[in-house]
């Protein structure tokens, strides 16, 4: 059965084309006995057995398996037997026979042997007038269409599923039930609902509230709708039932930065700037650019691969590896011979000589005397300080002014710090580029003005500058795994 499946009949078509009854009349054809011809092709025509079923094969080797003489028998466990089996496997005749039958069915709509002669033969009347080449070409459909056409004579099987209703039995039963119920005056739920809706149409839905048509009211007036439900209620009750809301801490009333919300561009950014102002702005932008270039250059210099003359040679690399090792050994070598014989613990340097009891006593007395004298001196000095009041006052004043000066300096420093944008996250705030137009880009009239920069970015940066949002960079798409490249055998890259 495997071989009986459809195969492109096209390949064999040339053998068949002349005999097909539906073929156009202009195709050349002689009157032959096709049956004999077929058998000639099969090569077995003359040897017909008594049990001939009358089968005509299209192909060579397709014979009615009933008529074939029995197979040669022989041992199959011998090498000779295997060879025979390989040459003509079991059931080959049946296969070819069935295949031929299918082919005939496809090509002619039935078995050749059973087709009446009129369908197989016609009288060749020779070339007619309508036979001209041009007309032929005109009539011919396109090759591409012909290829796609089905030329099988076997009708395609019907789609059975198209006529089947799933759950048909159940539905039929249900329908019968509802018919039965309808006679009693009962109706299904959907029908009842639809009828009810017909009697009482639902109120049309209000469209979703648009933020544009919000009710207007004065938020800051005495009796605004926002506070109205809370007016006159017990505060304790409101607090306990969490209706009042928590008071906003005072800390949050101050802004996180003193910078103005809208920073006006300097005078040089005018659409028609004065010469000086424009130059000043250009200078500023230039300096920023210069700084950036400097940083870039520095980086590239640091990352540059050394040139040949600067590249480390083998010698220098070795030297670097030995850095610090050799010098130590240099120092040690002269020291070694001296140390060599002193193996025991190093002798302690001799300390100071031990004091006698008398010496200790005297020292102690001297110390005591000294302390006493110092205390006396301090007391005397304190007594004298009454007369130095003016000087002390001066010192105090000096000290105070110094402290005040420091305080002021600290305050100024803090103010300067406040001016700067804070570091709020992983990234630092980066000031946007200064928007500037070169003298050649400046428009000579308002009509020709080409706006520079983007206000959206400006606003965004301003929020960052004022510490309202942290600077972020756009999250980039990151693949979790590496992409693997595989070359398929079907299409390979051409190597020329």
């Amino acid at each position, binding site marked *: 059965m495997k071989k009986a499946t459809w195969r492109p009949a096209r390949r064999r078509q040339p053998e068949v084309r002349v005999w097909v009854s539906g073929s156009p009349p202009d195709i050349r054809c002689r009157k032959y006995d096709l049956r004999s011809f077929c058998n000639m092709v099969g090569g077995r025509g003359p040897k017909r057995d008594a049990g001939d079923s009358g089968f005509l094969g299209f192909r060579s080797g397709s014979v009615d398996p009933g008529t074939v003489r029995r197979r040669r028998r022989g041992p199959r466990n011998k090498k000779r037997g295997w060879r025979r089996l390989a040459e003509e496997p079991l059931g080959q005749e049946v296969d070819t026979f069935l295949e031929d039958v299918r082919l005939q069915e496809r090509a002619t709509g039935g078995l050749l042997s059973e087709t009446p002669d009129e369908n197989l033969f016609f009288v060749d009347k020779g070339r007619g007038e309508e036979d001209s080449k041009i007309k032929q070409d005109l009539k011919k459909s396109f090759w591409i269409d012909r290829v796609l056409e089905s030329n099988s004579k076997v009708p395609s099987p019907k789609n059975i599923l198209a006529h089947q209703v799933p759950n048909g039995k159940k539905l039929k039963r249900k329908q019968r039930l509802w018919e039965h119920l309808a006679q009693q005056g009962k109706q299904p739920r959907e029908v009842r609902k639809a009828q009810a809706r017909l009697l009482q149409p639902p109120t049309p839905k209000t469209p979703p509230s648009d933020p544009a048509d*919000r009710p207007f009211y004065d938020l800051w007036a005495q009796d605004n709708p926002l506070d109205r439900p809370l007016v006159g209620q017990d505060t304790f009750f409101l607090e306990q039932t969490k209706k009042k*809301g928590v008071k906003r*801490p005072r800390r949050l009333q101050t802004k996180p930065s003193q910078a103005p919300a809208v920073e006006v561009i300097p005078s040089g950014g005018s659409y028609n700037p004065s010469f000086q102002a424009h130059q000043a702005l250009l200078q500023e932008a230039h300096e920023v650019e210069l700084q950036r270039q400097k940083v870039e250059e520095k980086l590239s210099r640091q990352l540059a691969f050394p040139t040949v003359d600067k590249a480390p040679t083998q010698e220098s690399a070795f030297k670097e590896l030995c850095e610090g090792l050799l010098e130590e050994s240099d120092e040690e070598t002269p020291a070694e011979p001296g140390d060599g014989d002193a193996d025991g613990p190093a002798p302690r340097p001799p300390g100071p000589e031990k004091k006698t009891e008398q010496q200790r006593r005297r020292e102690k007395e001297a110390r005591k005397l000294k302390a006493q004298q110092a205390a006396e001196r301090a007391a005397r000095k304190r007594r004298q300080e009454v007369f130095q009041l003016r000087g002390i006052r001066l010192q105090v004043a000096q000290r105070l002014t110094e402290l005040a000066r420091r305080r002021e300096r600290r305050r100024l420093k803090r103010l300067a710090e406040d001016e700067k944008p804070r570091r709020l996250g992983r990234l630092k705030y980066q000031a946007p580029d200064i928007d500037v137009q070169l003298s050649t880009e400046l428009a000579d009239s308002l009509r020709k003005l080409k706006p520079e920069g983007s206000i959206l970015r400006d606003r965004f940066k301003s929020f960052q500058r004022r510490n309202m949002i942290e600077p972020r960079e756009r999250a980039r798409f990151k693949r979790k795994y590496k992409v693997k490249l595989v070359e398929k055998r079907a299409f390979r890259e051409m190597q020329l």
Partner: protein
Amino acid sequence: MGGLEKKKYERGSATNYITRNKARKKLQLSLPDFRRLCILKGIYPHEPKHKKKVNKGSTAPRTFYLLKDIKFLLHEPIVNKFRDYKVFVRKLRKAYGKSEWNTVERLKDNKPAYKLDHIIKERYPTFIDALRDLDDALSMCFLFSTFPRTGKCHVQVIQLCRRLTVEFLNYIIASRSLRKVFLSIKGIYYEAEVLGQPIVWITPYAFSHNHPTDVDYRVMATFTEFYTTLLGFVNFRLYQTLNLHYPPKLEGPGDKDSKDQDEGAYAMDSESCLEKLSALSASLARVMVPVTEEEVEMDEFPADGENAEQEEGLRKEREAQEMHKKLFEGLKFFLNREVPREALAFIIRSFGGDVSWDKSVCIGATYSENEPSITHHIVDRPTQPNPVLGRYYVQPQWVFDSVNARLRLPVEEYFPGVLLPPHLSPFVTEKEGDYVPPEKQKLLALQRGETPGYVNESEDEDSEEDEEGESDDQEEEEEEEEGSEKEEEVKLKVMEEQRTQGKKVGVTMGTLKLEDKHRLEQEEANEAKRLAIMTMKKREKYLYDKIMFGKRRKVREANKLAQKRKAHDEAVKAEKKKNKKARRA
């Protein structure tokens, strides 16, 4: 000795701070939700003084919040709404996955929504607080209102922003509170004074968008969400202070039907109201028409010494401001189609001028180009095809510069095709000793009411000063007084000389020696100063010398810049002349 061992990081700054991730977990919110909550509530990250202590010994850079702030956030009712929303999204996704369309519809109808009213009230307890924070709100709303509707943010948000900004502009026009305008290469900066608070905002030029990729749109959208709510409440209150209708209504509903036809061409009925409002050409209807514009008289206090001068200054300032408000009153402008309509209409109307444009440019044109009463026609092309007599054709910069100079500038320098004087920033105020560019000097002179020496500067064009010597009479009077004093001095000197020349021995009547009190005082002051310098301590002297050196250096630099400028101007002039000669030849 003894007692429990003190553990590290259980007291002090380590317990005052909390990392962002911990805070997020404490609030049971996702990171985007947490971020949104923080922005809405005005809680910002904090940089600790000693990072290592706070970070439990680690030096990894982290975002820290104050623990008390996070505890405060725990009480916020909106947090629950955020959680509800999360659940809602989950349910919706499930319903979609199961194709249960009824459920989807039901869920969508019950989408959890939250209001920010209470947060606004909490963050801005008084109206003035809200006004002080309006800079950000306005800038964001103006920015978002110009966004293209391409899905970078919700269309409703864009529309809301547009509506709110138009309302605000209409208020500024009605209250005449615009003060300064600055056209920069980025956008247009405005400064207005609303209820005594200076408010600065920036608006982008029309169609100038490139969407930068390094901006987090979600964060910006959250800020906008908050600021639109704020601006809505502020607008309502502002309209109430002027007795205007809110939502705004235009004046003159009588001829509504007649206009309907050409309105149809611009916008649908639902949008035409906003479109007409945003044209800024008509004034707003008031709830009740004010009976008479009564001048608010300031309280007069008995003058005493120091205060008198101050009060005088204040009075002058007030008068100047009143004059400024009526800058364009009585003028009729017509805008050509190439000038930025919205900005100019807004500015002209907020200084009392009438403005119109071609009917095909925008809705709300009040008169046509052929109107004979038009005084100024604003064009931005070098030549005008068929000029009409009886009106000035000026470039748009004239309007902006006049507003900043607080007077109607002479129009000659702003004629079409003429090289414009530079547009100076009104936000820059020069300190004493700073370099003042000649254009600004000229302007200051004009403000003082002098006719500046620009007649001799522009020799080739015989320009006439037919316009506007308008300025405060007060200042002029003052100058006259000064002048008379000087004259007296001169007379005295002449007399003295005569006296000394005719030397005759003899006794004459003793004349009262007039002591110039002023000079004496000055001399005394000088003497005192010198003495003070002499008696200075070494350190102070050093500081004083440094300050004086700085001042002199500033002056020197200013002089240098002035010279440079002179050289530049001369070079330009020489070239001009050469060109002219070449053209003549």
